[in-house]
């Protein structure tokens, strides 16, 4: 630390400087405390209490809310739905994102058009996207149904009405948005590839596959981890799609974690149960993040 020119009492000036530091940090900390720490603590507190329409005043319940979750078949169904949703969307979004990015990079004559096609879903508000897809997926006379009929498929295609296909349909709509989003980051990664390394490998006689496997992928690895983490978290947090398109139905086939929390808290007024669900959700997100952080560290091992 540099000394001030007039050092009457060095400790005073130091104290003053650290006070200034504290004062500068304080607004930020206050915001975090107010909007992150306080809700978190109050969430934990609520999850240990019973508070619902039958018992408007919170009462200590220990782990009863969590025990109730364990015995609730709907909770397990919702968890399964959410994990299926992740499995259906994340790997595909990551892979398609890379393909799209590659395409955007190399579709020379029509680059602008390709970019527009892949990126415009991201700038559209999710609720509009869901509404438009709801319209497209209308059975009998919706666009998707018409195209399928024209191709010789079944006369009545009702993806959202059927409990077996509704989750798949919402996942496809989510993927339609998510892949373009992933492509942005992949594109940045492609731009950051070091041409010197590529050239060196070529001089050493590396083929296309070897180039991809040993030169490009190791460089893209951190981007990949990030894209995968982002896609997983966004799939876990999917809400708008099901809210607009299915309201979690038919018979909870598309009831995803966040929608279930929302419904438990706001529609059914079960504060304690919703808090317990949120704690479980928090742990789930934390686990996903940890896996990806570990994945990021493995980068050294790959290169």
């Amino acid at each position, binding site marked *: 630390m*540099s000394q001030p020119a007039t050092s009457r009492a060095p400790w005073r000036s130091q104290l*003053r400087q650290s006070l*200034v530091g504290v*004062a*500068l940090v*304080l*607004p930020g900390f*206050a915001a975090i405390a107010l909007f992150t720490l306080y809700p978190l603590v109050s969430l934990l507190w609520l999850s240990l209490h019973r508070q*619902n*329409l*039958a*018992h*408007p005043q919170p009462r200590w319940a220990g782990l009863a809310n969590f025990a109730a979750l364990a015995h609730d078949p709907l909770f397990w169904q919702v968890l399964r739905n959410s994990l299926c949703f992740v499995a259906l969307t994340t790997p595909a979004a990551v892979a398609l994102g890379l393909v799209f990015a590659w395409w955007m990079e190399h579709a020379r004559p029509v680059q602008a058009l390709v970019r527009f096609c892949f990126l415009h879903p991201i700038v559209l508000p999710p609720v509009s996207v869901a509404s438009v897809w709801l319209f497209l997926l*209308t*059975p*009998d*006379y919706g666009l998707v149904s018409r195209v399928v009929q024209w191709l010789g498929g079944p006369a*009545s295609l*009702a993806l*959202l*009405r*059927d*409990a*077996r296909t509704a989750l798949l349909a919402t996942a496809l709509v989510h993927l339609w948005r998510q892949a373009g989003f992933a492509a942005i980051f992949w594109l940045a990664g492609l731009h950051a590839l070091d041409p010197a390394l590529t050239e060196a490998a070529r001089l050493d006689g590396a083929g296309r596959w070897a180039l991809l496997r040993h030169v490009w992928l190791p460089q893209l690895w951190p981007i990949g981890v990030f894209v995968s983490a982002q896609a997983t978290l966004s799939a876990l947090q999917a809400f708008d799609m099901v809210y607009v398109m*299915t*309201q979690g*139905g*038919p*018979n*909870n*086939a598309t009831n995803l974690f966040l929608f279930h929390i929302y419904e438990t808290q*706001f*529609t*059914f*007024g079960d*504060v304690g149960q919703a808090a317990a669900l949120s704690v479980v959700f928090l742990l789930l997100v934390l686990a996903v993040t940890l896996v990806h952080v570990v994945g990021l560290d493995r980068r050294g091992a790959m290169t």
Partner: protein
Amino acid sequence: MTDMANQGMRWGAALRPLTRRQMLVGLAAGGIAGLLAACRSSAPATPATSSTGAGSNATPQGASAAPATVGRATVELTFFYPVGVAGPLSKLIQQLVDQFNQSHPQVHVTASFTGDYTSTTTKVLTALNAHQPPDVAILLSTDLQTLLDLNAIVPIDAFLTQAGPDFALDDFQPAFLKNSQAQGKTWSVPFQRSTPVLYANQAALQAAGRDPNALPQTWDELVEVAQRAMQTGKVSWGVEIPATGSAYWLFQALCIEAGHDLNGDGPASVAFDTAASRTALHWMVDLSRTMRVMPTGAIDWSATPTDFAAGHVAFVYHSTGSLRAILNQASFPVGVGFLPKREQYGTPTGGGNLYIFREIPAERQQAAWTFIQWMTAPERAAQWAIDTGYVPTRRSALETAIWRDYVAKTPQARVALDQLAYSYPELNGHQSGQLQKLVSDAVQAAVTGQKSPEQALADAQRQADQILAAYR
């Protein structure tokens, strides 16, 4: 790193300490003031000078006060309302509210469209949690028990006494008032009330060789006509009974027709698993699986009027509140009839009532009552019914000239009114939202083939009993 630190230090030294501190204090104070303002925004900032007790004929006061711009504070009201049927109803509500505001200078109502019924209830519950309820809201008539459990609303008995003969409660349809009364008091005023009705594509009926004015009276007849209409190729489907949105509501009608209501004895019991409900659910499943007159899967509530108006289906079950939109959109003559019977005719009533909230100052409750009185006046009740298809909520509305003219031209509008004679209160009770979802889930599980009707209904009954155990 050190470069940046030095830079920062220099920037810091350029600001004199006092200024910096002042700036921080200013920022903090501004932020806190902002937060406080946000928290307190619902508290009445105006001194209590208004006198809105004069009720609906308060215009002379307003007129005389108009030149003087000083004094006479306005009472600000927030009004939440849902739209649960097809058509541009939010525009109509906004027009009504604008008219009210113009004729009542002392009260200013801000109407807030809050989605469908479920999301409106959701928003109200959230606002109640934050102790910032709206002043007045349209909520399902079946939300009464939930609102009572939360101690959220005020009874209107005192206002009724005060209004005297100007506002006679017994002028309202008794079938609608059933959902307003509990604990010996009256808690809400019927506003947009409905029953489900059967909509028929008369062109398809004619093509099938039927008298287009003789709508099916029984379940079996409905299936027969639906099959014949499909054979003509004029429609893709015979009938649609939606299984999302208000699915429980239509299913309740089927249950009543089969002989037993879904409501139990009192607000802490339900009768989901009865011989009648099993018959009803089996029929719904059979319509698509064995009789093949209905599309398979969970048919979407809000898409059903569109399907019908587009001429894709011969018959649909939907709210009478969708009548206006369907008449406007359909390019063929539309017949409206009672829901076909099995053992008996039967239907639940449905729709929303106006509620006044407890956690607001008395003067705002009073202003809210003025607003409710105005909104439900006979002429307006008649006009609202004409504009939407909802049932006129009070008998004097039926005597108005506009309603008589309308029914003479549009006899379809009378059907729901006549059907009230066979009506039951909509499925209600403690945690009514959750109970209704259980029934809708059971219907969806059965029509999508995930569970047998017996299994689905038994599960729903068991889960409902678990929920209601807290209230017994």
